[in-house]
């Protein structure tokens, strides 16, 4: 099992999917000759040629719009949007065609495509390069939304997304791309879109996070367990929509307390939806208000202060303490 960082494991997933299925093609700005600004598509042009590795002109809406058309003819396009902030440009084609074509053609034209895009803060980037707006897509019927948290699950999740018969938004935590390496099995692992992963079992409180927020969450967990003697259960959501409500409900029904962590804005964010579901299905087990540790409802700040905006282990620990203290 080779050690890989997430950039490499995503590249591996693309490579193996393109190798296995010649309908898979990739497209986006600077993804061919340049191998992508984060080098996720490096080397694929040389292997699969211009027809399947397509450097597109600079227009996100048309990237998604044409990918939908290509999918309708039977291809499986994986379109990259260079930064998730620029999915706004493609909102029209995402909401109006990508998410709808199966339904509006009454099943005749499914859209088995993937929109890959790096999201989130933490790399000292300029304006519009640190957004986390997965909630927009969760609120959009017809899409699936998944977010890996590490090299290993990134590879399997991307593989699953590419092989999914429906359109998938694949958010890549760019802060994790080169953050660490981990063992990645030679063969792709089966992973089901729609399933969360309990990464640590515990009995005192449930911590729910995903993507780049798994790292501060796990860091906080370590402290909580080691220094504060709190037996934390940690869930990596992985699939934002559909969501593995059952796993969340089971966990919180057991622990009675919960903290949810994400970096996107709070208002109508993913945490709100999780709370609504826990309210519906674990109400009688809740011993304290579910706590949200999220980004604020402000624009992502300039990078000198981004670390203060982003949820960090300390804030998570505070929230856990507060939630545990609730009587």
């Amino acid at each position: 099992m080779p050690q890989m960082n997430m950039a490499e494991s995503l590249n591996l997933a693309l490579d193996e999917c393109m190798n296995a299925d010649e309908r898979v093609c990739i497209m986006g700005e600077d993804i061919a000759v340049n191998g992508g600004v984060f080098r996720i598509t490096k080397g694929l042009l040389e292997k699969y040629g211009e027809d399947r590795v397509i450097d597109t002109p600079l227009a996100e809406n048309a990237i998604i719009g044409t990918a939908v058309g290509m999918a309708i003819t039977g291809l499986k396009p994986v379109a990259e949007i260079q930064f998730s902030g620029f999915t706004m440009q493609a909102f029209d084609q995402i909401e109006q065609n990508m998410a709808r074509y199966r339904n509006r053609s009454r099943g005749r034209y499914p859209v088995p495509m993937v929109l890959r895009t790096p999201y989130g803060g933490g790399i000292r980037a300029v304006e519009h390069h640190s957004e986390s707006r997965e909630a927009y897509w969760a609120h959009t019927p017809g899409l699936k939304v998944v977010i890996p948290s590490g090299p290993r699950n990134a590879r399997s999740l991307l593989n699953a997304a590419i092989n999914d018969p429906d359109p998938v938004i694949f958010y890549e935590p760019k802060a994790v791309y080169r953050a660490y390496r981990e063992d990645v099995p030679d063969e792709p692992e089966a992973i089901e879109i729609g399933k969360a992963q309990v990464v640590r079992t515990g009995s005192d409180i449930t911590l729910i996070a995903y993507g780049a927020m798994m790292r501060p969450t796990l860091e906080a967990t370590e402290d909580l367990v080691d220094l504060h003697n709190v037996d934390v259960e940690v869930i990596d959501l992985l699939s934002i929509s559909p969501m593995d409500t059952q796993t969340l409900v089971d966990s919180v029904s057991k622990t009675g307390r919960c903290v949810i962590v994400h970096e996107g804005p709070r208002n109508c964010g993913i945490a709100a939806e999780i709370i609504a579901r826990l309210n519906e299905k674990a109400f009688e087990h809740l011993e304290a208000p579910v706590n949200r540790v999220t980004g604020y409802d402000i624009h992502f700040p300039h990078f000198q202060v981004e670390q203060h905006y982003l949820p960090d282990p300390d804030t998570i620990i505070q929230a856990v303490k507060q939630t545990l203290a609730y009587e």
Partner: protein
Amino acid sequence: MPKDTIHQTQKVTPSAPEIAVKSSQFSRRPTITPPKPRRDISTPSIALGEIPNLQILNEKGEVSDPAHEPKLESAEHLKIYRAMILARKLDTRMLTMQRQGEMGTFAPGMGQEATQVGQIYPLLQKDWFSPSYRSFGAQLWRGWTIEGLMLLWNGYADGFNIPDGVNDLPFSIVIGSQVATATGVAMGLKRQKDNAVVVTNFGDGAISQGIIGESFNFAAVDKAPIVFVCENNGYAISMPVQKQTGADFLAGRSLGYGIPSMRVDGNDILAMIVAMNGAVDRARRGEGPTFLEAVTYRMSLHTTADDPKVYRKDEEVEYWKTRCPIARYEKYLINKDLLSIEAIEKIATECEQEVLAGRERFRELAKANPRVVFDYMYQTLPAELQEQKQEYLNKLDRKETDQ
């Protein structure tokens, strides 16, 4: 019209004026490569060439450009004529149905029959068509059924079922949106090397949408096999095309993207067929996209919810009635002895019957099934949607009990 014969149209000769040459200054690929300057700017100016205008039949039904008059067999002429009549009959009938409460808001196509039938005439069955909402005429030719169109405009999901053997996309209500999908389809077909082409249409208002410019660019860069047809019918709802653009005409819009273009008299079926034939052939030969501006007129309402009296004069409509595409073609066919008054009446009656028969089938089929609204969301409905579906079905059950 029997479906299997639709796509066996006659090869059109002579061919269209050579548009690629005439606007070649725009479509010439770069020849200067580094280390020389990428763009040579040492000449005092760049000549832009010209855009051909194409009209073959003038408004009196006379041949104004004999060099381009297509040599079509009589049967072919009648098939085309009939398709235009059928489109108009459907239009008229649906308007009546709408006024009588049997039809939802819809967008009549009256006056655009030549543009409609001409734009898909050269297509084969394997080709694709990605229309806007005002496209009955073309859709009927492509194999969509009368009852299907009536269903969908009356709010039944079943109207969106794409008939077997038809490759087309369902029309799009979102202005300009279908053009991006169409471009993607063309890019996909090209990669699958099956030599099929795509036609997409949009209005004089739609061309203001950025996505159409983006699509032009993608198609040009990819040399995708697609023909873009702008049906300039003079209005986008209340907005006259003169206020929609600062340019004098729309045909120039694609040139800056390297896509050759032509302006066609959209009320002249022969010009439409010849122009489209040339453009489709170009696409099929792998020479990339073409753009046509078809100059026509929306003789009727924008939609049945619209009152055009607020924004246009009756005299303008009257004027355009004298340019009616059907009347014009009729005169031509009569002059050529291909059509008699009796034949005209016979075809009119047949088409009316066909529409009424379609309406009968529509009435039989017009049963809304509220239970299916979850069924085409995903290949497999996720657990959370299964729950919502159950909740929804319970609600329906409750309503039925209540009633």
